[in-house]
């Protein structure tokens, strides 16, 4: 029995939400700060950019969560695939030869 994979929907939800919030907060704060303090631009501090960031954050968190769930086969049963038994030979790179010690 191989080691069980530690991923599960609860963890994916936490990662999606917190990583999205952290990343977007950082990107917005860094962008707005540099634009304001270095170039005197105040437009990033308006309500429209803030609203766009908030809407994007909500959308991306959901997209991120569903992406992880889909990748990890947490949705559906895989019914469109079948497992076919085959006998195969798999090409693998030879291990690097060790130099003989003198």
């Amino acid at each position, binding site marked *: *029995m*191989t*080691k*069980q*994979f*530690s*991923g599960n929907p609860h963890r*994916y939800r936490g*990662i999606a939400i917190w*990583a999205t919030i952290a*990343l977007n907060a*950082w*990107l917005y704060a*860094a*962008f707005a700060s*540099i*634009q304001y303090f*270095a*170039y005197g*631009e105040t437009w*990033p501090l308006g309500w429209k950019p803030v609203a766009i960031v908030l809407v994007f954050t909500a959308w*991306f968190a959901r*997209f*991120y969560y569903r*992406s*992880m769930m889909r*990748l*990890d*086969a947490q949705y559906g*049963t*895989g019914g469109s*695939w079948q*497992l076919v*038994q085959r006998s195969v030979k*798999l090409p*693998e*790179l030879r*291990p690097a030869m060790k130099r003989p010690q003198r």
Partner: protein
Amino acid sequence: MLTFLQGVLGPYYLYIKLIHLIAVTAWLWTTAVGYAFYLVPVFKAWRRNPNDLEIIALRDWVMERFDHGVIYEHLAFPVVLLTGPLLWITAGWSPAAGWFLLKLLIVISVFLPIEFCDYYLSHLGGKKQLLRASGDPDRYERGIQRHWWFLLITSAPVVFFGVLVMYLAVVKPF
């Protein structure tokens, strides 16, 4: 120094841009087919049948092939990092341009950390061929599962922010 570089490199701006775009395209897309049509279906089969030894054998093989194939992406990425600043210098863009600043922040905050991890997982201590050669099956299995965690976490951001960076560079919306 900047003026000197602008003088020397300025006439070659379009050539530097061409190399940059070729490298960005290679970095973004060379793993796409192998990932989507080989690695993901096998890993999904493994997640649905976690104790099937034949699926595990194929999973391990496809992961090692992917470690090998990602070399194109990892050769292109330093070219992107080198030609990007050269374009910055020759074109005279500055972070005052919103599109440029956001693009820089995304590269530094999203892609640099992801690629550092990716280099480790595919070519350095996390390389599956090396882990297999160590003769420790538990260590190998941990390496495979760590890489799967990495792909789960990074796939959506890479796809979304990769396309966003190209959009910002071409359309320059703000």
